[in-house]
């Protein structure tokens, strides 16, 4: 849906690409004639600072065959100039403290990448520390297998975090100041709904959030204490509109939009106060406490105007909604952790957490509906007033007690038990205010549950080069609202890491078994969900000589989820929902330097999900395109997976032109294909060339 000016930028990029290549080749030729044997040295200092810098500026070209929208949704690498993997650092080499002892700036991705970042770190020992993170991401989403391809976006999101810590009295007393921003804007499409039909509409997305933090940390009466006060202001100013008349997704009814406009400003604020304390008593008891109180509020006022025809073929001259909402959410969280050092090798810990919040929201709706019948005669104007009120009350206690015993330096075990008690209550009412005798309709639900979990684990170092971990959790989770998460579960993890002089082997296995018994009172049957997942991963890093490194790994993810469901098709029927993942991931990277002026990198990555394999395809991603619907053979069953093949080979060759300049040439290829829908397949070619300029690096 978004038209790209790729052709122009492609041509420009290729010209730049060739130009940079020619410059680099001429540099290489010139350098070959007068080889420089002077090492860069590691003593590049300016005014008492050691300066180290490496900046890579490159040009990438992109050529996509197939679905450009899917390519951009996945990758969104664009034609053009980009800054990549660049850094700059200052280190104070004088033996005295200066206002800036250390400065680090690291940046990558600015320009033609989909995401760019810059990290800045500046500090002076014992005086202050400053961290700044700046990020930008170009979010593109245009997928034909999600929401009828009607939820799309092409937005930029800018995020930043600035944090300053000052030490007026050393590390034992600190003042923290912080600020963050988060801006998102850009066009997209969304859905609006009226008269039993839904319509794709355009949207100008605009959200904005700003955070401020101030805090103190220090030591008082032997306690390490911290107190932080924070504030966030956020708002949304997205507007929705229709570019032209639309008959909507339901193409067999009479509903049409001739115009649509929605303004939906939302303003919110969040205040929070966090207090934390920690002390270790007599090297025997470690005590930690934290209390957070937050108060978040939102206010909204929506105006929506629709013109067109309704599902009874009446003319809608104006359907105007004014809806105002006001919601508040106070939340208190308290945590307490205690560790008792019974002996140097045996510790008992207890962690208690308390969480409570309430959400009180109310809205008021006013609708003015002006219509004419299909013959054009006016109908009575309808005025509707209604109100609704909703409350969510939540509280949870979690207590975990664990014992940890270091049997020998090479072996330790732990054993624990976790108890959770949770209560969730929902209630509210809705009321039409148009008539005098309207009565509110109330709703209310309450759920309470307790869960128990056993925890055990061990770490062994059978040899100096070998570390082996395993742990297991068995019990029940406290998700009373959903079945997609686990109820009764057994999670097992094992990790093994073998580290030799020049080679490292790393293996891990994760197993999760979840069962979720449920009962349908309406059907009068017991049914449930069983979810089993297994992940096996292994990789090797081999670095036999400094000039050669090889790294490779394989991960297999196996998941089968089977859940009984009740489906209306068209009457209520019991069916099965099954979802399969059979994902194989493999990668291999090689780095080599066959000559002191030439090095290369090659990599191959493949992600191949076989999905449900040969199982019958009863429901292949039903998609409504026009009036054509994928036939559903057994509508009560949903059997799904997402078999894909996503592979990406790449290489890069680096030529050292001078002691401070490298010329890089690279190429990356992406090949994406889906088994059930080929409309989103793509192949992308990304040639790349760059210059990397070093400053102050050690002998190269």
């Amino acid at each position, binding site marked *: 849906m978004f038209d790209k000016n790729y052709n122009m930028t492609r041509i420009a990029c290729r010209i730049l690409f060739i130009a940079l290549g020619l410059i680099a080749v001429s540099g290489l030729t010139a350098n070959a004639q007068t080889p420089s044997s002077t090492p860069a040295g590691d003593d590049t200092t300016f005014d008492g600072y050691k300066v180290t810098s*490496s900046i890579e500026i490159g040009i990438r070209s992109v050529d996509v065959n197939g679905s450009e929208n899917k390519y951009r949704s996945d990758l969104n690498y664009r034609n053009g100039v980009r800054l990549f993997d660049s850094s700059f650092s200052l280190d104070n080499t004088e033996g005295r403290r200066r206002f800036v002892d250390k400065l680090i700036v690291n940046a990558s991705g600015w320009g033609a990448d989909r995401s760019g970042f810059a990290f800045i770190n500046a500090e002076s020992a014992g005086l202050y520390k400053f961290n700044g993170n700046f990020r930008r991401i170009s979010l593109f989403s245009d997928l034909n297998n999600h929401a009828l391809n009607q939820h799309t976006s092409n937005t930029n999101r800018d995020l930043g975090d600035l944090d300053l810590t000052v030490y007026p009295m050393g590390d034992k007393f600190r003042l923290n100041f912080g600020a963050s921003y988060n801006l998102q804007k850009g066009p997209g499409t969304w859905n609006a*709904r009226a008269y039993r039909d839904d319509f794709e509409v355009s949207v100008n997305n605009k959200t904005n959030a700003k955070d401020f933090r101030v805090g103190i940390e220090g030591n008082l009466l032997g306690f390490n204490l911290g107190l932080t006060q924070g504030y966030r202001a956020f708002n949304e100013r997205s507007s929705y509109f229709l570019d032209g008349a639309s008959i909507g997704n339901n193409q067999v009814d009479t509903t049409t939009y001739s115009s649509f406009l929605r303004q939906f400003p939302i303003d919110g604020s969040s205040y929070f106060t966090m207090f934390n304390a920690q002390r270790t008593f007599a090297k025997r008891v470690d005590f930690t406490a934290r209390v957070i109180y937050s108060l978040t509020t939102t206010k909204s006022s929506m105006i929506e105007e629709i013109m067109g025809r309704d599902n009874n073929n009446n003319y809608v001259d104006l359907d105007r909604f004014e809806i105002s909402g006001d919601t508040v959410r106070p939340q208190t969280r308290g945590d307490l952790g205690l560790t008792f050092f019974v002996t140097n090798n045996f510790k008992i810990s207890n962690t208690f957490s308390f969480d409570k919040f309430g959400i009180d929201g109310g809205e008021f709706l006013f609708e003015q509906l002006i219509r004419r019948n299909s013959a054009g005669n006016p109908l009575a104007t309808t005025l509707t007033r209604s109100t609704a009120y909703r409350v969510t009350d939540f509280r949870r206690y979690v207590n975990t007690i664990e014992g940890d015993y270091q049997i020998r330096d090479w072996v330790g075990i732990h054993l624990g038990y976790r108890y959770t008690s949770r209560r969730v209550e929902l209630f509210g009412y809705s009321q039409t205010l148009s008539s005098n005798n309207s009565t509110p309709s109330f709703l209310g639900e309450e759920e309470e549950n307790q869960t128990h979990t056993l925890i055990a684990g061990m770490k062994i170092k059978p040899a100096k080069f070998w570390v082996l971990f395993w742990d297991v959790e068995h019990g029940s989770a406290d998700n009373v609202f959903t079945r997609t998460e686990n109820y009764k579960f057994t999670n097992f993890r094992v990790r093994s890491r073998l580290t030799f002089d020049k080679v490292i082997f790393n293996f891990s296995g994760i197993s999760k078994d979840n069962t979720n018994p449920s009962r349908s009172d309406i059907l009068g049957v017991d049914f449930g969900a069983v979810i089993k997942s297994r992940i096996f991963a292994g990789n090797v890093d081999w670095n036999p000589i400094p000039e050669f490194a090889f790294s490779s790994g394989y991960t297999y993810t196996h998941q089968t989820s089977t859940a009984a469901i009740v489906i209306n098709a068209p009457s209520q029927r019991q069916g099965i929902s099954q979802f399969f993942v059979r*994902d194989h991931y493999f990668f291999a990277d090689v780095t080599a330097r066959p000559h002191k002026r030439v090095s290369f990198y090659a990599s191959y990555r493949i992600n191949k999900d076989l999905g449900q394999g040969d199982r019958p395809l009863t429901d292949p991603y039903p998609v409504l395109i026009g009036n054509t619907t994928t036939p559903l053979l057994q509508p009560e069953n949903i059997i799904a997976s997402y078999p894909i093949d996503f592979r990406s080979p790449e290489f890069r060759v680096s030529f050292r032109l001078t002691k401070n300049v490298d010329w890089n040439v690279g190429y990356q290829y992406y090949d994406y294909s889906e088994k059930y829908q080929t409309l989103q397949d793509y192949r992308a070619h990304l040639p790349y060339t760059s210059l990397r300029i070093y400053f102050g690096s050690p002998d190269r």
Partner: protein
Amino acid sequence: MTSTKKVKIALLGAFILLTLVWAFSGTFSKAMLSNKAEALSILPSSNADDFVGSETCKACHEDQFKVVAMTKHGRLSEDPKWKDKVQGCESCHGGGKAHVEGGGDKTKIISFAGKNSKEVSETCLACHAGRESHNNFRRGEHWRNDVGCTDCHSPHGSEQHFVEAKTGSITFPGETTQENPSIATSFMLKRSQPDLCISCHNETESQFTKPFHHKVLEGMMKCSDCHNPHGGFETKQTKLAVGNDAVCIKCHTDKQGPFVFEHAPLKTEGCSACHVPHGSNNPKLLKRSNVRQLCMECHSLLSNADPGAPQTPHNQSTGRYNNCTVCHARIHGSNASAAFFR
């Protein structure tokens, strides 16, 4: 004045008052390790005469001394507030006098080579405990599995700091190198994130290479943006955002709410009830490739798992109703529609 405003003013007022009381009480300075004798008490060897100073160590351990000198640990000597305290090598290894007089006798100095991770970590915590982010280390997943401070941090400074950059991917920023020093030297990590974390949690690499993923390998995000490796009170050691919210809300501000009409799982179960946070083949990082499948696994007339989760009245054999979020577009919560239409 509304009650909400009163609460906000009271919170801010209490914070300012406490800050002032604290700052002017002068008591915090008394609690500091304000003299050498007190500072020495954290070490097994607490006699001031047992210390010889880092310059003496340098005579034999010059290479290590050079690396340490560039780190924050090495710079403490430049801080006037540390002048009277133990600095340098002996602040962790204890007094070196006996070691020196013994001709480098390894049994007469604290060596961490043979100690288990928890013992090593206790030495670090003698100074580094007390920050909110570190307070739960002794109860965290890493501690529980015997992963200590020096498994991730290099107290002497990263030895790889001076390794030359390797030619690497044109997509993912490189590893710890001299030319790319920032990530490595931040927090004195042994390797940069995410490579450090993936070196144990190797299964996550495949998740971050799926078609939809958070941009971790690309360097825009770090593992520590969402997780606190030092432990925490939250599941999976995730961080909190804006006080009490899930860490996802830090960036996804439009999901923060509160909404007049909440989709209950959003706040009570968390984002991961429906989404896979690291990466997925499925659009929107959903747990299922098919949105209605995800919805129906809860909205299925269950009696013990679905307060307020009505079953769909729509005929699922009609393709039009197979895409729930086309109509229920504000599925995370709405301020204008109980059915999340707008």
